Every structure is written in structure tokens, then in C-alpha cells.
């Protein structure tokens, strides 16, 4: 019995090796890096597998671009240096397009965009910060006026932000000297410290903040204050590529555009964020 089974398996394996390669195997193989610690964009699930909006979208984009993609996890603070060191070929990690990053790497067209703001505890005085929506691209004066109005609230408070992010650049530009800014390796860590009461607010994308509110530690948390987007906060989330890989940029650009056009991004966005994060052109 065992022998028969072994022979069958060996035969099947042999057939597999000898069979003509199917179409997908002819696709160019590339590695795509993600952080794996930024739910619901990308995170590691209870089985230890990468999951999230960008994993679903990445698979879809790769199919359209005829690429054979393998996702790998990479710590956030080394995610751009390792791209340049050719450890992988693309980044899909909730990474916003900024002029500073564009000095080093290339971005495709944006595949998602959403506002940023403060995550606080419901019983915190910061919960009473005034709301509103402001763009640092279209209405800098209005946005900066709203920021000025936040300063009395944030004076002497502690803000938690993930290091090397647009959120940190924004917080440092406007609140340095007003509030103490603490840098974390991952957003999960500042969420833990917010729930422990070590920080008064976390500065993060609303998409990620909402996911935290729905998590086990989030029931006493809320998004407070205005929603900010654009400018120093970035021009939308896109695939990051090395500057010399123009063929990849062309392929991903076309895939992103078609996924926006046929509503795939909207569908995936509703699935993971419960709101439509499709970039508005």
C-alpha cells in the first residue's frame, strides 16, 4: 500500500516536472515588501501569514501587470534602504508619495488616499479638539489656522508617532516645542502606549486609527480633532520602486489605473477600510 502510494506521488511529481511550464510561470518574478504591522493595510494574521488591503490589491495588481509576486515582510524603518539595496523590487506598505522620498525612489500612481489625524482616549481633554477637514495641498492657510487652534490643546502633551513616516514629519513640523513627540518602531506600539496612558494622542492615518478602535484595546479610543491630508502628509499611497526600474513603473501604473477604473480598488477598500479610499484625481 505504502509502496503504491509512494510510486503514485513520485509519478505525479515527475509529471509535474516534465509538464510544459504554464503561462504564469513565464511571468517575471519580483519580490514586494510590506511592513506586516499596519492593519488593515498589511499585517500578520494569527496563522503568521501576511494579510490586508495591500496583500489583496498587490495580488490583483501583479496579475494585471503579469508579474509573479512574492510578498515579504520588512521593518518599516529599513523599508526604503532595503529597496535600494535590491533585497526586493517594490514596496506596498501604506507608503505615501512625498517629494523627499521621490528624491530616492520612484512611485507609481496612487492606489489609495485618506486623511490623517489624532487617536485619543475618550476621557482625554484632547477628545474635545475641534473637528473639520483640511488639505495641506489645496488650502495651506486654512489647514495651518486649524493647526494653530490645536496648539493650546496639545501644549505639554505627549504625542506618539511611528518613526520615518509622513505623520512624524507633520507632527515635527507643526508641534515640535509644543508637545513632546515620541517615536515608535510600529504603530501597534504607540497604540499600546495610548491604551496604557503613556501618551496623550497617537498621530496616524484615520484608516489605521479606525482599525485600532475596532481592536481589543480600542474600545475607549476615538479619533479627535480635524482630519488633515496632502502636503507634507503625502500625496496618496503608491507602489514604491527603484528609479531605474521604469518597466515596472509602466506595468504597475497601468495596473493601478485599471484597478481604479473598474472599481476593484473601491471594492477592496470597502472590504478592508469600510470606506472608499480610492484616490480622487
Amino acid at each position, binding site marked *: 500500500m505504502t509502496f503504491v502510494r509512494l510510486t503514485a506521488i513520485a509519478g505525479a511529481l515527475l509529471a509535474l516536472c516534465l509538464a510544459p511550464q504554464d503561462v504564469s510561470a513565464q511571468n517575471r518574478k519580483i519580490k514586494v515588501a510590506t511592513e506586516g504591522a499596519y492593519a488593515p493595510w498589511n499585517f500578520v494574521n494569527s496563522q503568521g501569514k501576511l494579510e490586508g488591503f495591500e496583500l489583496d490589491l498587490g495580488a490583483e495588481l501583479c496579475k494585471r501587470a503579469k508579474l509573479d509576486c512574492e510578498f515579504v515582510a520588512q521593518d518599516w524603518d529599513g523599508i*526604503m534602504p532595503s529597496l535600494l539595496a535590491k533585497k526586493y523590487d517594490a514596496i506596498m506598505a501604506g507608503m505615501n508619495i512625498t517629494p523627499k522620498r521621490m528624491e530616492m525612489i520612484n512611485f507609481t500612481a496612487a492606489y489609495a488616499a485618506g486623511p490623517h489625524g489624532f487617536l485619543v482616549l475618550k476621557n482625554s481633554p484632547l477628545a474635545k479638539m475641534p473637528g473639520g477637514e483640511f488639505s495641506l495641498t489645496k488650502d495651506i492657510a486654512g489647514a495651518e489656522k486649524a493647526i494653530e487652534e490645536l496648539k493650546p490643546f496639545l501644549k505639554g502633551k505627549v504625542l506618539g508617532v511611528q518613526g*520615518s513616516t509622513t505623520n512624524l514629519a507633520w507632527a515635527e513640523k507643526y508641534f515640535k516645542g509644543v508637545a513632546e513627540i515620541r*517615536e*515608535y518602531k510600529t504603530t501597534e*506600539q504607540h497604540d*499600546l*502606549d495610548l*491604551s*496604557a496612558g*503613556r501618551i496623550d494622542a497617537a498621530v496616524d492615518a484615520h484608516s489605521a486609527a479606525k482599525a485600532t478602535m475596532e481592536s481589543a484595546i480600542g474600545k475607549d479610543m476615538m479619533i479627535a480633532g480635524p482630519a488633515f491630508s496632502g502636503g507634507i502628509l503625502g500625496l496618496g499611497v503608491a507602489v514604491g520602486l527603484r528609479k531605474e526600474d521604469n518597466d515596472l513603473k509602466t506595468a504597475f501604473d497601468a495596473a493601478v489605473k485599471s484597478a481604479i477604473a473598474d472599481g476593484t480598488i473601491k471594492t477592496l477598500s470597502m472590504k478592508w477600510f469600510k470606506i472608499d479610499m480610492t484616490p480622487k484625481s
Partner: protein
Amino acid sequence: MLAGVPLTLQLAFSSIALGLGMAIALALIVRAGLRPLSWLAESYVFVFRGTPLLVQIFLVYYGLGQFRPELQEIGLWWFFRSPYYCALLALTLNTAAYGAEIVRGGLQSVPAGQIEAARAFGMSGLTLYRRIVAPIALRQALPAYGNEIILMIKATSLVSTITLMEVTGLAHKLISETFRSFEVFFAAGTIYLLMNFVVTRLIDLAERWIAPDLKRENRVAMVPLDTR
């Protein structure tokens, strides 16, 4: 990055000072051999030497952060709220465990004959410890303890994981801004090397000072010239 040096040194030396006190206490307890107490001290050393420092830092910082209501109730939250105190506590507890073993080794190296001789002179208790045991143990333990000091200076590089911007934390920040990982890490390594260069010189001086008869020149002179 140099801006991180004061924090690195402050953390290293405060934890070494506090840890040394704890280490001596632990070693004496183990040596005294009073069963329940010495058993506790031995388990402490076993646990803190057997688990990674990074895990200990995370346990103290994020782990205990989970028990805020309880800690607030007993009035200790102000301590655990601060990343600095959490780092200091984790580093101190860790170095105390290694230090205890070094001190124990030093105490064990004191020859029984020396103690007997001292007793024969009528020394007992504290006098015996102060004049015979401690000096001999110190000489034996210092080289190993110097090692521990160097290790602790390097161990502070882990506290950047709990938001403290010491040399390594600032190096990471600088790399994410400049993407020059080689240059920045090379510079960070050099900073640690310079700090440890000073420390090794100081330990060397201390060794010569407490054991002048063991100076290298003297030791060389004691080797028989040519016995062939």
C-alpha cells in the same frame, strides 16, 4: 548622533551602579545558603540570565503597561509610565543577575587557606570580609566585571525600541532620512568603540591600582629567564 551619548552613558552607568549593589546582595545571599532566600536569589539569576534582555525590556515596558489600573492603585504608575525608568529597571535587573555570578565567582576564588590564616589571627565577621575576602575577591572579579560594564554600554542600544533616542535610535532616524546605512552605522559603531575605549582604559587603571603586584611588568619578571 553624539546627542544620544549622554543618554546612553547615563542609562549604562546608573544601571551598572544600581545593578552592582543588587549583585553583591544576591551573591552574599547565595553564599550564606539560607535555603528559601538563597533559592530565590538563584532562581532570579537563572531567569534573568536565561531570557533575552530585549524580551525583558518589552515585558517591563509594554507588558506592565497593561496593568495600569493596578499600578496606579499602588502608586507606582508614575515610574512605569516613563520609558526612561522602565529601561533603567530592565537594564538594572539584567546586569544584577550577571553581576551576581561574577561576584560569586570572585568570592569563591578566595583560597580557604587565606581565610583560615585570618581566623588564626583572630579576625572574624566584617573585619575578615573587609581586609581579606573583599580585596582578593575584587581582584579576581574585576576583569570579568569590566566585561559586564562594556556589555551594558552596548546593551543600551536596545532601549531605542521603547522610544528612547540614544545613539542607536538616532542612527536609525538618520538612516531613514539620508539612506546612508553604511556611513551612519559605521559612525554609530565608532561612537560605541570610543566610549568603550575610555572604559577599558579606566578598568585597566583600576586593575593596576588594586593589584600592583600583578602588574604586567612584574609578572614578566617573575617568569624564569631560560630553563632549557
